[in-house]
Structures are given as structure tokens and as C-alpha cells.
């Protein structure tokens, strides 16, 4: 199971990197989302995907899955959620003010 997950994460990373290297700012933001998805799945996978009960003590199971990575992922999800929404608003504002979404045209050292 871990092998398939690793392959899927690899695909997510590849797509993310490809999108980040493109010109349009929206594709770049999509790329960062793919990347963070990949990272969150990686956190989950690295704690071994043993079968076990959900980490609720009421389940009274023999074995539980590792609860720690789930907490880490939850933290990381909300952080990346906040950052992504900020990034979207920033891209919108930059599009309004600079009149382009092409990263090639956002170069230069001139201070306007």
C-alpha cells in the first residue's frame, strides 16, 4: 500500500512542480496546492498505513492507527489553507493593479 501511495505522491509533486514553473499566476497557485496535497499525503504515508481502528478510545479496538500524523496534517492543512487564500487575494489585487497575470512581465528592478 505504501508503494502505491508513494507513487501517487510522486505524481502530485511532479504536477505541482510543473505548474509552479509555468507563467500564469493561477497555475502557480494551483501548483502550490498540488504540492501541499502531496506533502500531507506523505505525512500520512510515513507513519505506516497499518490497518487499525480510528484513533477513538470508544472503539475499544485491539490496535489503533498512529494519531500523531493526523494531528500534524490537520495543523498543516489549516496553515496552507490560510496561506493559499492570502495568495489568491494577493494575486487578484496584483492583477487589478499591475494589469497582468504573466510572471514574465513581473520582472525588472524598476520601481515605477
Amino acid at each position, binding site marked *: 500500500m505504501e508503494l502505491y501511495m508513494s507513487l501517487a505522491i510522486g505524481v502530485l509533486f511532479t504536477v505541482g512542480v510543473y505548474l509552479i514553473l509555468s507563467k500564469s499566476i493561477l497555475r502557480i497557485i494551483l501548483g*502550490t496546492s498540488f504540492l501541499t496535497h502531496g506533502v500531507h499525503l*506523505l505525512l500520512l504515508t510515513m*507513519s505506516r498505513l497499518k490497518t487499525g481502528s480510528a484513533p477513538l478510545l470508544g472503539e475499544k479496538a485491539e490496535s489503533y492507527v498512529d494519531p500523531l*500524523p493526523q494531528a500534524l496534517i490537520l*495543523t498543516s492543512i489549516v*496553515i*496552507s489553507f*490560510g496561506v493559499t487564500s492570502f495568495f489568491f487575494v494577493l494575486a487578484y489585487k496584483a492583477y487589478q493593479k499591475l494589469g497582468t497575470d504573466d510572471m514574465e512581465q513581473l520582472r525588472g528592478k524598476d520601481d515605477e
Partner: protein
Amino acid sequence: MNNLLILPLLIPLCTAVLLIFLKRSIPLQRWISAIGSAANVAAAGYILYQVKTDGIQTLYMSGWVPPYGITFVADMLAALLVLVTAIIGSFCLFYSFSSIGEERERHYFYPLLQFLLVGVSGSFLTGDIFNLFVCFEVMLISSYALIVLGGTKIQLRESLKYILINILSSALFVAAIAYLYGVVGTLNMADLSQRVAEAGQDGVLNVIAIMFMIVFSLKAGLFLFFWLPGSYSAPPAAITALFGALLTKVGLYALLRTFTLIFYHEPSITHEWMGWMAGATMALGAFGALAYKDIPRILNYNVVISIGFIAFGLTAANKDSLDGAVLYLVHDMLAKALLFILGGIVIAAARTTKLNGMGGLIRTYPYLGWMFFVTALAIAGIPPLSGFPGKMMILRGGLQNEQFWLVALSLASSFIVLYSLMRIFMSAFWGEERQVPVMSGKQQRSMLIPAAGLLVIVVTMGLCAEWLYDFVSVAGDTLINPSLYIDAVLKEGMR
């Protein structure tokens, strides 16, 4: 257990939350953030005193013993850096009173500044690697908002790149944590250090170590600094002073911590690489500092050079060089904040950032001129001033380690630092006077007083280096001997 350790986080956090509700009244915002900053300095000073008298202080959140709960650890390095952060935070705050402008003040500048301090102090104090990530994010998200606050075209353009780079490095950070957790199964730094030592730092752990090196180098601007000069020239001087003094140094602190506490078993791989990166950083930073005729750019490349220099102190990894790295780190944070503040005043006085367009300021602004002169000498490392002892100890450590090329490179880069800053001084203050409107005396005083305060601290640090060394050598002991840190964190949990 010492509950006071949480104060450097709690004071700015409560101040920031309070300030959000006081959006309308700018005088009240100023007063409350000033009181908060003063309280923060006092708390950080008291923690430093406790660390000095009683050794390493720890705090287990809600009484969960490590490695199960989140630990806060103040060893001498963290305590020193927290105090320096609090001091820089308050001086930048005083400088921003006169320079930041009402428009930004009304849009949550002061709360964002306090949130930035929360993230920075948290990163210094935490003893848990995932908590370090969270504190990094607190710091970074505040910095995203600060860098774009005001919304001019250049700020929007540069903040897009700044955010993209930091999202990328944060994703890599989480991936590195995932791998590390997969291999050793813990997140507490002291426990990590023990388990990495037990496992022996073999192939997989070396890869993870290099991944951490890439992540922290991106944050610190060590070799991977391509984002830094552009981003840091966008926001106003008070904000750049905070960034240049604090943000990159948090990355450096993370490098120092991970590569002295956790991954110190294979220096021939990790430290060797970092040596190359440090050398390249100094060389490329020096090219940048020589190439530009624009004050923000020159100052930003000076930040890059000093990062390479401190990383060199880490790679030599003996007692002298680590002591020197800590001493230089403390000096450099204060001196860079001062330099950016003075640079901001020069730009405000000359009404331009270009060196070609200014001249003759020494007649109208004599104090500013001589303060800039002394600061430049201090940063270059001229003996009675504060840059000298740290630089000398790093070089001595490098010589003991027989890294002659890096020693030569860092000496050469010191000359270039001196040259680039003196070029600003000579073209801005000497030469023919330009016809620009002069600032009123009151405005001048309100800007120069915070800079003068920082300058007094920087000069005193140079004159009382012997006294400061008593603190720094304790920090160096912990870095060279990680078992001191591990015992302080884990042994106390056993009781």
C-alpha cells in the same frame, strides 16, 4: 519547569490581540504596543538572567513530559536571541512611529509587527521540530502581510515571489519532517538527537539532513538567496529593518540548532556542503554589494554576506568558531537593524534611493552622517566596535580547522562590506549639496533617537565584549556539547 519561558510569546500575542480591537485610535495603538514591547524586553532579560544563574530552563506545556508534549527550552543561545529580538522589535517600533505613515498604521501595522515577534521568539524557544514549523509559519504569514502592506506596485510584484518561495520551502519543511518522523518516530529535538545518535547517521538520515539544510538555507538566504534582494527592497525601511535583522537569522538559528544538536555525526557530508554554500554566499553577496548603486540593494546584499559568514562559523564546528558565530549573530542582528534604519533615514533625507542623486548631506545632517560612519565600521569589524570579536573568533576557528580558502574569502568579503558601505557614506554625505527640502528638526529627532539608542547598544557590545563573552561562551558550550541540552530537557522529565 519554568513558566516564565512562555512570556516572550504571550506578551506580544496578547498585545497584538488587544491592538486588533483598537483599530480606530492610533495614539492608543502606539502606547499599547510600546508598553507591550517594553514588557517583552524586561521578560526576555529576566529569562536571560535565569539561564545565566541556573542553567538551561525548560517548560513542559500542560505538564506533559518530553518526548510526549511540546517542550520550550531556553538555553543560552535561545535566551540571548530572544532578548535581542525583543530589543530590535522595540527599536523598530519606535522608528516606525515617525516613519511608517498613518495609512499603514490604520491597517493593522502594529498588530502584525507583534505577531511577527511572536513567531520569531517562538522559533527560538521551541524544543519541538513541528512546533518550529508552526512558529515559522506564524512569522512568515505576518511577514507576508507586512511586505505587501500599503499595496504599491513594487510591493505587490515582489510579495508574489516572496510568498511563492516561502510556500515552497514550507512544503519541503513538512516533507522533511515527515521523512524524519518515518525514520525515527519522534518530533522532540532532544529525543530526535538521541535517536539519530542511536541509529547512526547513515544514508537515509544524511538525505534528510541535507533536505533540512535546503529548507533552512532557503529561509536564511544561505546560497539560495535569489529571492532576498528583490523582496527586501519593496517594503518601507522600518519593515525591512525587522526582516533583515530577524527573519533570515531565524533560518540561521534553525541551521545552528539542527546541525549541532541533531545531525552532527557526519560533518564530512553536511558541514562540508555547508562550507561550500557559505563560501559561495559570501562571494556572490560581495558581487551584489559592489554592483548596485541603490541603497536598499547594497544593504540587502550586505545581509547576504553576513549570512554566509555566520554559516562559515557553523561549518568549522569547533568551540572558537561556534562562540564566534553566536557572538557575530547577536552583533549582526542589532547592527543590521541599525543599518537599515539609518539607510531609511538617508533615503528619506535625500528623497531618492539612487547614490547618483544624492550628496552633501553631512552639512544638513551631521549626526546622521557620523552615526552611519560608525555603524559601517562596526559591521566591517573594525577593532573597538562590536563586529570585531565575533569575526576574529570565527576566523580563528576556521584557521584551526584549516579552512584557509574560506578564511581568505571572508576577509576579502569584509573589505567589500567596508567598501560598499563607505561608498554609500561618501556619495551620500560628502560632495556637492543637492537642492532637496530639509526635514524639520522635530522629524529628524524622532527618527534619529531610536537609531542612536541602537548605536549605543552596538558600541557598548564592542567595548564590553569581555563581559558579553561570559554569556556567549555558555551558549557555545551547549552547541559543541549537545548532551548538555539533551540532559536538561529529558532528565528533568524523568523526575
